[in-house]
């Protein structure tokens, strides 16, 4: 286990280090602005990095768990030759915010437990994560503070906080330490004071401006279990378009479909997996036609319960990190976990 270390690094020195990584050919991904939106893209220069708002539309999980990826390739030639396609190369993910770092922290747990997912893990092992502190809320929909996700739980190599002319760097791994070894120094008492002040100001700002979670965080599993038959599910479900947008933008959703794709020669093909969504009608449909979660409200309940009941209880962490993306993406504004949980809490007290 790597003991947590803290360092400070000058901005120009850090940017030079990133430039050197880009120069070496290693892929570096970071939030990049385009028009009034942002998304994670491969960058060619550190100047492209968007350090603050707006939040990326899609979380960075696609870098380790692509929207679609080949699992096996095969060739039918009298016999059948099958080969797994594990492709992964070193990469750096820069400027990731705590909600997304924590989401990756959670995905690491689910993909590395029994039946280890080699595809995810091979990319993950090759990925250096350099996080960036959030000093102001990224949207009105975000509620990371309420999900204990304003601070990363782990999973990062380096986590940076802007303290003016320099970055305060929390180092999570040996890899991260090596990256900074030549350019960083120990923080002075003054640096630590600065960091403390910035964080206190940040905490006050988030606490003042982010929506409140009415039940306590650790009480969510019990609340969801006890209100399994709450009218809230059906009422919100009625408005659901079953579009699956909430699943697609979620940093912790990891359900996937597996399907075959045959080349035009009908001899070679591949089996790929692609993101799937539990809010889609056919998600549980079997060949006989039976749909095991047919009601939209039941699907909404499943999605919310997966985040803050089933997986929360299993792993001890909420599987919604409060990024707020689903609340933004939802066309009928029914899906935001914090709003559902607050409503259920209120209704249950009646």
């Amino acid at each position, binding site marked *: 286990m790597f003991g947590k270390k803290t360092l400070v690094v000058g901005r120009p020195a850090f940017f030079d280090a990133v430039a050197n990584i880009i120069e070496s050919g290693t892929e570096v991904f970071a939030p990049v602005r385009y028009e009034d939106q942002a998304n994670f893209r491969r960058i060619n220069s550190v100047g492209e990095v968007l350090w603050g708002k707006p939040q990326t539309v899609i979380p960075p999980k696609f870098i380790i768990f692509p929207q679609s990826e080949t699992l096996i390739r095969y060739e039918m030639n009298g016999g059948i030759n099958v080969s797994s396609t594990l492709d992964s190369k070193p990469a750096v993910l820069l400027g990731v915010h705590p909600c997304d770092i924590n989401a990756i922290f959670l995905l690491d747990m689910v993909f590395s437990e029994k039946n280890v997912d080699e595809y995810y893990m091979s990319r993950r092992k090759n990925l250096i994560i350099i996080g960036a502190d959030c000093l102001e809320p990224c949207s009105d929909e975000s509620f990371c503070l309420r999900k204990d996700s304003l601070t990363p739980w782990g999973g990062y190599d380096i986590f940076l906080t802007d303290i003016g002319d320099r970055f305060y760097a929390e180092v999570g791994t040996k890899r991260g330490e090596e990256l900074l070894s030549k350019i960083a120094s120990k923080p002075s008492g003054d640096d630590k004071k600065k960091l403390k002040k910035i964080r206190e100001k940040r905490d006050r700002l988030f606490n003042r401006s982010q929506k409140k979670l009415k039940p306590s965080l650790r009480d969510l599993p019990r609340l969801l279990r006890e209100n399994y038959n709450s009218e809230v599910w059906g009422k919100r479900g009625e408005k659901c378009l079953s579009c699956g947008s909430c699943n697609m933008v979620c940093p912790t959703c990891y*359900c996937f479909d597996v399907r075959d794709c045959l080349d035009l020669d009908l001899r070679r093909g591949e089996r790929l997996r692609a993101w*799937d969504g*539990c809010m889609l009608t056919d998600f549980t449909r079997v060949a*006989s036609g039976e749909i095991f979660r047919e009601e939209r409200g039941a699907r909404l309940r499943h999605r919310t319960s997966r985040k803050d009941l089933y997986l929360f209880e299993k792993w001890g962490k909420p599987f919604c990190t409060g990024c707020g993306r689903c609340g933004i993406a939802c066309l009928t504004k029914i899906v935001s976990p914090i709003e559902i949980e607050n409503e259920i809490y209120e209704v249950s007290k009646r």
Partner: protein
Amino acid sequence: MTAYEPEIARITGIEELTGTEKLFKIELSRDRFDHLPGQFVEVSVFGVGEAPISISSPPTGEPRFELCVRAIGNVTNALHRKKPGDLIGIRGPFGRGFELKDFRGKDILFIAGGLGLAPLRSLIWSVLNSRKQFGEVFILYGARRPQELLFKNELRMWEERKDLRYLVTVDVGDESWKGNVGVITTLIPQVEFNPRRTRVVIVGPPVMYRFVIKSLKERGMPDENIWVSLERKMKCGLGKCGHCQMNHLYVCQDGPVFRYDEIKDVPEAI
């Protein structure tokens, strides 16, 4: 090799059971294949896809097994077009199966509805192959129509055996059908069993469980003496893809076989 890479297997024989079901004999090139009754494999028809299919034959340790498959989806229809000698892919076996130790020394009541006989056949023959280790054996089987009855030769053998009681019913009869007509629950009053000594195993379409369990409960059957095997959509078999989840349980890993007391409070189960 990753967990998604299937082993290549050969279809060594195909038996047409009904108009929609075929029994495929599968052979792997490895030395052994070990499975439990109730477990399933992911079957690949390359170029079409994968489907979860329960193993129909009792465990032998040999690298050979049987799959009873209804032509109903893309993969199963493609499988039905295969000929003996053709190659398919196999991953697995997956999931939790039936453990014979839970049934030894007990009376056993098998209740199969429709295609539910396919997985149940693996357990039935496991029991019949070491018949002396078990008490009384009842087999109740229901199908929609007489022509949909599976494994007709074996049904005749069970009918003639003196060491078990076999009852069959169809939802809708025809001119030649002389037997019971009615849903499977109509057979339950026809058997005498001691609820404490009996273990019940139910496999059938999703709609069947609630009614069968209700009739059994009325006869005093304790929850922990009832076993079921549940069907769900399954893509990975590894507890990751999420399709088979019912509340907190993954059917592909925690099931498909469950003891009823484990799932009676799981609202999405039955």
